[in-house]
């Protein structure tokens, strides 16, 4: 199983690529809605990217209340 830091790094890389920002624009504890300026539908795009990348299913109710990359990585690691 990948460690949490590795998952965080991969999430940030995917998010930066998808939303076309520099990789160093985002940090593990950033509120990704605010930092990336995204809405809920765009968050679903990120969710799909993550599911495809990590080859898991992450039901969207697992995303409720999650706004930072670190917590998101934790939710993903619980499914791997």
């Amino acid at each position, binding site marked *: 199983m990948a460690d949490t830091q590795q998952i965080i790094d991969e999430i940030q890389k995917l998010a930066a690529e998808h939303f076309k920002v520099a990789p160093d624009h985002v940090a593990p504890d950033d509120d990704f809605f605010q930092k990336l300026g995204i809405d*809920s*539908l765009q968050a*679903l795009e990120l969710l*799909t*990217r993550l*599911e495809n990348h990590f080859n898991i*299913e992450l039901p969207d*109710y697992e995303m*409720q209340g999650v706004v930072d990359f670190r917590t998101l990585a934790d939710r993903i690691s619980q499914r791997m």
Partner: protein
Amino acid sequence: MTTSAKTETLSWSCEQGIIELELHRAPANEIGSQTLEDLEGFVKALDELKIEAAALIIHSSIAAGFCAGADLRELYHTGKTMGEHDRITGVREFLNRIHAVLNVIDETPLTTIAAVHGTTFGGGFELALACDLIIADKMTRFCFPELRLGLIPGFGGIPRLKRDLGNAVVRDLLLTGRSMNATKAAQVGLVSQLVGEGKALVAARSTARQILKFDRGTSAAAKRFVKPIPHAELREEIDIFCDLFSRPAVDAGLRKFVESEDPYPYLP
């Protein structure tokens, strides 16, 4: 014969035996009264178009996705101007009209393809389910979020999904309200072709050209044989929806959605 038209929410054209219906209402092709009226205009035109065509492709030019479903903001605000009886009557009339549209698309002798991407939720999912084939790009997500509002899907989604898939998948989507990505949807048999980002329409056009090679009467007979319309369940769905719609939980759910500042208002 008119071979193309453009309205406020959609446009369509017919060339070389292939009809393309494009949804283009920002922000996410929510289906409200205007989209319904425009869809009714399209299915009326389909009467003549289907004489010359063999295939119909439905797709969206909106980046957010195929369609986010019913226009809940319109539903909420319109309902606020009405008394209880008129509100229920209005919803039933809307459902009867959208069911009539989707039944025409479902049973047309044309072979129909939904080329989907991104958000394909609620009524948008139900529109795709009326088609014979769903071709999805890998960023598509399917969802029935209606239980969050105290409702069931109202545009024919449950009977049509039951027709196509095992009941366990239907229960998973319906009772959890979770969204399903296109890869999983292809694994369970909902999606017939899974393609790369932005490639659904290209794949749909290629498939439509294949369909053109067949005798249209034979294709229509094959479709009638394998794709019966579940009329009784569709009518029952409207009744259940309207019964649920009169409950206070629905008004509370709609208000929560419309007024929400939650970062995930589309998620149950």
